[in-house]
Each structure stands twice: as structure tokens, then as C-alpha cells.
């Protein structure tokens, strides 16, 4: 009689078995999992201070509970809509302009045949990413000041000087465009690697069918990186209210408050004045809830429209 070598395990052991089977992979994953657990999930319980009149001395367990007072304080501030509007304007501008450009750069780089030139362009475009925000804003201010380079060029062309940094209408553009300049190379890296992953045989097939380079890009490359684009797009939408405060704090001045003051800079100023941690936590939760809603929405829409989503 043949011995039955198949061992039937009860279902509940299959995860453990799975882990044992691939233990080296799970071992590599373990520190990351631990990191997220300890530094991201457990601290989430700290958001409870948004519902308290938090005092560092008393700590979480002894501080007074105030329910939704911090949230109401924030939402009933007459400046709330202005802050929200400014945040959304800057975010949307970043999305609409800043999202496609790294893709365009990656596509263009892909078309280069001279390898040395390609590498040169890649290096030059991603180097600005490493400039610190303080230095970056220093450069911006110097270039854009009334007696700076840009106005110098304008003067040479007979044009009057423009006050870039003190005109509120220009602020979102300067902020977004300088961000793009700084990060376009770095962001394009992920697309370059996605493009490299497109099957070469598809290009062969397209060439045989008579497609020129432009048509190849349109019908082979773009669809090939579509899923990467989708993932990054949804993630960027999920950050729509998270316009960081550091760069804006360095760039804004009283002439540009009306377009430059975003939620995070307002909370930074208020927090500095009063060390009101409960209030800052409440605004943080508000941001996260809005961001999460946008994330869910865009994921749902994308699934409906293209059948693909983040999850």
C-alpha cells in the first residue's frame, strides 16, 4: 500500500505555517512592522488629548475632558474658511501641475538614446532635492527681491520690477513652482523605474504594427505605468490638507498672509503662543479625517472608473 504523504492541517494553523515556511522574509519584515506598531499605531491613542484641556504636568489621565470644545474652537474661528481655502488652493495647484510633470520628465528621459547625457540630466534634476528648506527659501528670496536676478533680467528687457514675494496672488505659484523645481527629479525616479519595467516585447509588437515613437509612448509606455501613476495619485490626494508649515513660515510675510496662511502655519503660531496641545491635536485629527475621506473617495472613484484602486 502506498503511504499517504499528504498531511492535512486544520485551517487555523495555516498563517503560522505560512510564516514558518517563509521565515526569512517575515524576519526582514519584522522590524518594519514593529516600527509602524510602536511609532505609528500606539501613539494614535495619544490623539485622545484632542478631547481634553491637556496639561503636560497632569498627563493624559489627569487632564480635564472638554469633549468637542477644541474642534468647535477651530471650526468657529472666522479665519477658518480662509485657512481651508489657502490650504486647498496650494494643494490642488501642486496636484494639477506638480503631478504630471515628473511623469513627463521620466517619459522624456526614456526617449534619450545617449546614455551619458541621460545620466547627466537625471543627476542634475534630482540634486536640488537635497537642498534644505531654509537654503531654498533664501535662494528664492534673493532671486526674487526687487534688486535680485529676476528683476535684473526684467530691467534689462525694459520691464518694470515685480514684487514677487510681497504680492499675495503670486504666492501659491511661487510656492508650488519652486517645490516642483526642487523635487521633479526625485519624483521622476519612481516613474523611470516603472518605465524600465515595461515589457520590451510590447514595443517590438508596436513597432511591427507601424507605431512611431510618439505612438509607442502613448499606447505602450503610458498604459504600462498606469498602475504606478494611479497609486501615487491617490496617495497625493490623500495628503491634500497636509501642506507643511516649514517652507511657508519662511516664505510668508504680512503682505501675503491672505493667500499664504494655511492651517498648519496658523496652528503653529497659535501653538507657540499658548502651548495648547489639545487644540493642535484636534486640528490634526480634523486634517486626518478630511485626508482620509479624500483618500477613500478617490480610491472608490478610481475603482469604478478603471477597475483599479489602492486596495
Amino acid at each position, binding site marked *: 500500500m502506498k503511504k499517504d504523504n499528504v498531511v492535512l492541517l486544520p485551517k487555523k494553523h495555516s498563517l503560522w505555517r505560512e510564516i514558518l515556511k517563509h521565515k526569512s522574509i517575515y524576519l526582514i519584515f519584522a522590524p518594519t512592522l514593529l516600527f509602524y506598531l510602536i511609532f505609528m499605531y500606539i501613539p494614535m491613542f495619544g490623539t485622545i488629548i484632542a478631547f481634553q484641556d491637556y*496639561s*503636560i*504636568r*497632569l*498627563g493624559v489621565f489627569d487632564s480635564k475632558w472638554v469633549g468637542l470644545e477644541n474642534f468647535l*474652537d477651530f471650526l468657529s*474661528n*472666522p*479665519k477658518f474658511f480662509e485657512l481651508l481655502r489657502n490650504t486647498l488652493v496650494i494643494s490642488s495647484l501642486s496636484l494639477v501641475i506638480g503631478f504630471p510633470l515628473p511623469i513627463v520628465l521620466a517619459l522624456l528621459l526614456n526617449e534619450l538614446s545617449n546614455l551619458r547625457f541621460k545620466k547627466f540630466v537625471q543627476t542634475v534634476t534630482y540634486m536640488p532635492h537635497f537642498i534644505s528648506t531654509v537654503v531654498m527659501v*533664501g535662494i528664492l*528670496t*534673493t532671486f526674487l*527681491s*526687487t*534688486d535680485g536676478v529676476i528683476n535684473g533680467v526684467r530691467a534689462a528687457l525694459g520691464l518694470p*520690477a515685480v*514684487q514677487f*514675494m*510681497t504680492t499675495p496672488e503670486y504666492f501659491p505659484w511661487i510656492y508650488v513652482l519652486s517645490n516642483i523645481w526642487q523635487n521633479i527629479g526625485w519624483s521622476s525616479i519612481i516613474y523611470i523605474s516603472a518605465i524600465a519595467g515595461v515589457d520590451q516585447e510590447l514595443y517590438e509588437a508596436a513597432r511591427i504594427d507601424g507605431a512611431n515613437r510618439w505612438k509607442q509612448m502613448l499606447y505602450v509606455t503610458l498604459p504600462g505605468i498606469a498602475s504606478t501613476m494611479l497609486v501615487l495619485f491617490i496617495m497625493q490626494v490623500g495628503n491634500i490638507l497636509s501642506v507643511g508649515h516649514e517652507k511657508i513660515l519662511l516664505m510668508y*510675510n*504680512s*503682505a501675503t*498672509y*491672505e493667500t499664504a*496662511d494655511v492651517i498648519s502655519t496658523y496652528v503653529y*503660531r*497659535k501653538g507657540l*503662543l*499658548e*502651548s495648547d496641545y489639545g487644540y493642535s491635536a484636534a486640528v490634526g485629527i480634523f486634517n486626518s479625517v478630511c485626508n482620509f475621506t479624500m483618500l477613500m473617495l478617490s480610491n472608490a472613484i478610481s475603482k469604478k472608473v478603471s477597475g483599479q484602486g489602492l486596495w
Partner: protein
Amino acid sequence: MKLSFKVLTKRVLPAILAVTLMATVGGCSKKGGEKGENVSTGTMPKNLTVWAPLGSLAAKAGANDRGDILAYKIIEEQTGCVIDWISPSSAEGLEKFNLLIAGDKLPDIICADVWSGRDTYRDIEEGLIVPISDYLDYMPNLKKFLEENPDVAKQFRNDDGSIHYLPSARGDEELTVFVGPTIRKDWLDKLGLEMPTNTDELYNVLKAFKTQDPNGNGKQDEIAFSGMGGDSWSYGIGNIVWAYDTHYSFFVKDGKITHGMLEEEMKPALEYLAKLYSEGLIDPDYLINDDEKYKAKILNDRSGFFFGIQPSSYYLTLNDGTKELVGVPYFDGKCYNEQYLNRLGGGQTVITGDCKDPAGAAMWLDYFFSPEGIIATNFGIEGETHNVVDGKRVLDHDYVFNNPDGLESKEVCHSSFIGASTDFPSVQLWEYYSQTLQPWGKAAIEVWSSSANPENALPKLKFTAEEKDLISDELENINTYVSTQFNNIIMGRASVNDLDKIKEELDNLGMQDVLKVYNDSYVRYLNK
């Protein structure tokens, strides 16, 4: 107060210990000392733990903690009280402070410039600090100082008379004056102009600076009137409005507190500034100038008139014999700079709720206000760091300016004298400070201090926690709105005729509520 374990250990037990200690010491010789009434003198403690961040200049000079600074070494010797210093770097001071108070055991004394922004009544309730005023009987020197300087005492005290924290004090009026209008005297001389004494004369001087090439390089690159910011008491160009009897923030008018944007004097003031700006007499980049750019314009012979700080490196560099920067006397003495009224420095220090011997801690802190303490903190050791010449204390020139360890004079001062860093409760003396200034620096401060009449500037008001809660949002919105409109009018983007609309909008933002709170506090201030 309910009798929880926390209250027991933090409040009741230390109180019992302190009373027992006092009774043991005082019982021998004192009479009439009822329990709880601190009339005995207590004793200087042998040991205290003090948390106090270390300033960057002292660190640069090689100090590892405050104990390496000369003044504290002298006091340790003279009092016999050995201090355990905990000195984080001042750059991470606030962070470390928050960690400290979230922890379990507090040091005896905390020195951190946070107390004026906190609700110290709440801190007392939560056991974080104990009020200094509870131990005033152990502090005869401080008491004397407050009695002899009622103006300063007013700023130390809360409206109910209590003192929750001790800052350093500016012993003389000149010490509050460290910023003021400055002009290139050599340019005035070159163009044959007199020092301006009113806004019309200033206009003519600025126009001459702009058009007559006083820096002599053939290019019209002079910036007649430079600055950093508009409505900023330090370097802001908006300070000119003071000459019109008004201010871009809150000030005193006819015995009440009001806001400049609500008053009619603001109209001609802003008209003047707008005129200057439109004729190119004001630096077009005044809002985006940062420290570096502002200084560079001065050092590059471009700025003719500006509000500058003293002491400063550019005064040093520029006053080299060919060029001359001098202080300009305030026009008609009109000055609304709140800082001129501020007799307090930094170094806000409290006795914590965990201190086992608060009376002793108070005694140690009091030493800094004693005659010996004041000498130690301002001049150091007689015969070594200073000498007595004709009855006056004179810093040893070589020690400060030709230091044997190769340190710069600033570093020497900050690692030796608290009168330099003003970051611990003590009394800063003009007698000391003036010696560290260059002659033109001293001259500038004397010009500003003797010509200014800041009696209508906003005094240091104190607010209750409820008041602060009520107006903090509104104040923030009002300040950003005023800042924007003020600069918009100067730059010509809005017109002076918009002032009525601005007044309306300020009311919408809650200005009347804010004024009420300010005036209530002002009444309390006057009655202190």
C-alpha cells in the same frame, strides 16, 4: 483641595517638613513665630538642584553647565550652597522643559523663559510651582529692591500682588533702550544737512540721500530708509508713525488703551509713509529683508536711515573713522516702544512644588539681589575681573577685551557675568553694561534714552486665564489683519481712505472685546 495621595505627598508633607524645620531652627531664638507664619530666617541650604539652559555664547566659551560661569562660582563660594546644575543647550530648551515637567521628579528650581506665557495659577494648582511671594520673608534683599524700585516691582507682581516667578531686572532705565533710529552722520555732513528733528526735515534728508549719491559711487543705489518689517518695534519702518502720536498696535491715549488703527492720527502717519514709499525713499524689499540682507545693505553703504539695534556688529564695522553711524533723537520725544518700559530681562525662575526646602531655595535666590550678589553677577571678582577706581567699579580691560584664553569680549562677558546674559534672577546695572559698549554704542543709547518719552507706550499688562481664553483667537486675527493692512497702505495697494473700512472690519474681528479686556487689565495695573 481633596486629600488624595498626590496632594498628600506634594503639598501636605513638604509643608509639614518645612514647618518642622522652621520650628526647630527658629524655636531656639525667635519669639512670636506662630506656626505657618514665616518670621524665622531659615538657613541657607547646603545643596540645591537647579535646571537652567546654557546660553550659546557661554557654551562657545567652554562652559558645560551654568556652574562653569564665574558669577555662579563666586556665589557658590560665598553662600556655601553647592548647586547641582542641569543645563541643556538653550536651543533645545523648550523641548527639554516640556519633557522635564512631564516627568516625575522635578528639580528644586527651574529657570526657563516660559512662565510669563503660562497660566501660573494653574501651575500652582497642579503642584508644578510654589509662588515666590509666599517666601518673601526669607528674601530681605529682594524685598528692599522692590521697595526702592516701585516701577520694577509693578512688573514683577501679578495683579493680586503675588509673585509667581522671578526674572532678571534691568536696574537702570538706560538698560531698556537697545534699539532706536540711526543715521549715517557722515552722509549728513557730506551733503551739508542738519540732523532731522521732525518728519518734514526727515523727508528732505531722505530725498537728499536718495538723489545726491552720498556714498559716492556714481550709482543711485542708496536706500534712504531701510528696515525689516513694517509694524515691528525693533527694525520696522513703521516706527516713524510714533512722530504722529500714534502706534500700529495698542497704546495709551487720554488715560485709556486704544489701538492705533482706530485713531485719527493714523491717517497722516500712513500718508507720510505711503508718500515715502511711492517716491522710492523706503526700501522696496523692507518686508522680505532678513537679518543678513538688512545688515548687508548697511555694511555695503546703501542704507542711510534705519532703526537699528545696539550693540551691533555693523556699528562696530562702520564706525571706522571714515564713516559714522549715530543715534537720532526722537522727534519731540515721541516714542511708543513698549520695550522701553520693560524693566524685566530673561531668566524667569520658579521654586518647584517638589522642592523640599522652599524657604532655603528662596534664601539662595535672594542672595543674587544682595550687594555682594550684585557685584558678583555684574563685575565678578575685585582685583581679578574688575578693579575699584575712584570709587567706581571698572572692568579689567585685558580680561574682557584681550582675554588670556583668547575669547571674544562677548564670550568673556557671557561666561562670567549674568549682567551680560540677563538669564537668571539678578539686577543688571548700567554701570556694568555701559562698559561693554563701544563709545558710539554708549552714545547712541544715551541719545535715545535721553530724548525718548515712552510714557504712553503699552505697559506690561497681566491677564487672567479667562481673559486670555476669551481674546487669544481674536487677538491673533486682529494682529494679522492689522499687519496686512498697515503694510498694504504703505506699499500703495490700499488707500489711507480705507481706514474706515478697516475700523469696521476690526470691530467684526472682536476689537471691542479685546479693548475691554485690555482696559480692565490697565485699571488693575494702575492700582497695583
